[in-house]
């Protein structure tokens, strides 16, 4: 096997590895309903958290 071809197999294999991970991630996103609401997340991230009162912070 020539040098050029064999190194390509490595790079392509690793590239496909990332590809497979990405596909897996995408499938998971869809199946768990991550993509069902695309309207409120960009709004919700703008809200700052409600600060807790000092007394309650003991639970934290």
């Amino acid at each position: 096997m020539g040098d050029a071809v064999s190194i390509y197999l490595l790079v392509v294999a690793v590239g496909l590895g990332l590809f497979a991970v990405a596909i897996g991630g995408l499938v998971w996103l869809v199946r768990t309903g991550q993509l069902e609401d695309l309207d409120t997340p960009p709004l919700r991230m703008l809200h700052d958290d409600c600060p807790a009162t000092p007394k309650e912070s003991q639970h934290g």
Partner: protein
Amino acid sequence: MAEAASDAAVHHEEDHKAVLDTFSYDNRLPMWFAWATIIWGIVGMLVGVIIAVQMTGLGSTWGPKVLNQEWLGFGRLRPLHTNAVIFAFTGNAIFAGVYYALQRLLKARLWCDGLGWFHFWGWQLIIVAAAVTLPLGISTSKEYAELEWPIDIAIAAVWVAFGANMIGTIFKRRERHLYVAIWFFLATFLGIAMLHIVNSLAVPAGILKSYSVFAGQQDALVQWWYGHNAVAFFLTTPILGLMYYYLPKAAGRPVFSYRLSIVHFWSLVFIYIWAGPHHLLHTSLPVWAQAVGTVFSIILWAPSWGGMVNGLLTLRGAFDKVRTDPVLKFYVLSVTFYGMSTFEGPMMSLREVNALTHNTDWTIGHVHAGALGWVGFMCFGMLYWMIPKLYRTKLKSVPMADLHFWMASLGIVLYVISMYAAGAIQAAMWFKFDASGILAYPDWMAILRELVWPYIGRAVGGLLYLTGAVLCLWNLIATAKQGQPVEDETVQAPPLAREKPVHQVVGEAAAVKGNVFDRMTAFHSLVERWPFALIITASISLVIGGAFEIIPNLVQGSLTPRIETVKPYTPLELHGRDLYIREGCNSCHTQMVRTLRADTARFGDAHMGGVPAYTRAGEDIYDRPFLWGSKRTGPDLDREGLIKNNLPGWHYRHMLDPQLTSAGSIMPGYPHLYDYASDLSDLQARMSTLAGAPMYTPYSEAEITNAEALAAEQAAEVAGRLRKALSGNAEVTVPDDLEDKEIVAMIAYLERLGTDLTRED
């Protein structure tokens, strides 16, 4: 009535309290990473300014020669600059930004405080190790991966801690939806882990020396697959994650299109990884592979501009705020530079354009538009937004931040335009043939002299940018002083409906009765329940499986030289090559004559006995690592042995003081090579490493055992020739023990370059 109503209100409040978790965000970790960002940023930029001033001729054409200290050489400081600004400045900014945003997006404290501090101190120690080893010349020479193997292992360990902390936090989150920024952060973790491990595969030949398991053209492909994707996964995806969090936060309005941001993410993840070969156009890489790189690079333009538009339009209706808010000023210019760089990149991947821009300073301008503009401005904007929040105060001085913005902007413009000018001059002169078809500017020095003003412009631009960063540090310190650090920020959020605990789910799966198929199905559904387990297992197995399958092939492939006359380096030449790597000569000299007439005519056609001089893949099969380089400030050296063999003593005079042979050269002198005796004590170890698995360089037992004697024999021969050539030369003195000096090994290596292909024996 009133009493009842207030009663109800109290009850309602208690219900509300009962469903809220009270917890705290760790602000100390992002705080420390933020300070590390600005401090290392200034260090990295300062080194950049120093080497930019060197490029104007400091220490060679002007200024005291005493600045030619061995550890101040451009070849050693350049990797220090690139590593510092990429991994120290940008790296710390990414970690600060990720740890701050991740906790808030997931409504959870970081998974493990201890892991966070291991990450912080581990990363800072790695940076210090880099800052010590690189000036000492301890380098692999692979760009943006110069650190030697013990540091590489430390990087892998710290990187895994970073990923584990992110994923652990995702597991304990109180917000079901993973905001798009988090996907960019996860891709960063996975991508860099994979790239770093593959590109760093090397066999140690000592505590601070290793040889790449890949050779020549293979090593070049792996390196630029890494190099390009380091841009993708260290300088693009994490910065985009920051953009998608901090830009909407600062603008006070949601991202223009959340759907577009998701399309942006997935298209980058699927396309970026295939574009690396555009760094190797017109080389000995197969043309089909080059074409793959070009095609994917052009495709990348579309999603990149989608992201740019998405960022800029997030400010719709809020553009007036850009006038008054320095944070938004930095973000707007940053995103604009993202658009510019991601347009320019695909253009530079076109073969015809690349022929002109590659190896020139145009490329340096391109990367700095991306690094200073896109990455730098995003990081500064984030710091100006985050530090006041972490210290519960307001930015100390808005006019000072505005001044920083304008100084840095002017600095970038000056820098980039200077480099475009330099690149255009280089391309025009390299490629110019006269009416009869002969190179119009055969004298390299005539070209270099034209670059003085662009290089001065670059240094001034860099200085402006650095000064802006110092103002930033002052402003941030003053801001912190007037505020109070909020180290643990206590907040409340409703808990996420918990899934069953792990042990219970596993127990249930184990309790499934029936045939083997039913039991397997039960366990498989477990894997599906935990997507991250699936993702991690899949990627690790794919990468390991792929590597084990392919590496034996690589070895087989490089066992048999395809060009009969190409032989491994002699012991002395090998030592000279390692010195070439130590001094970072590849920072300015390429060893790749491209398949372009402008290249072959300039770099060797006349000396090749009738065959064209371009570099063949088969010539580099013993080159671990490859030394093709990427920037041609000095001439290509791939045929150096052929070109200079009629000029005895030339190299000796040149490296002692380049002005002796090349008036106006901006190369530093290397007097220390004439002082130090070659350290051959580990030469046998180096050779047996190369001869061992998995590289199998064909050195015989006798060659390895007699390495020092063979080296001494060749050194005596080279030194004898040098003495003869230099006798009566008043400019230089030749030491009595010349054969022991490092310069002799270096010259032996340079004289060997390019001679294998045409030699008779």
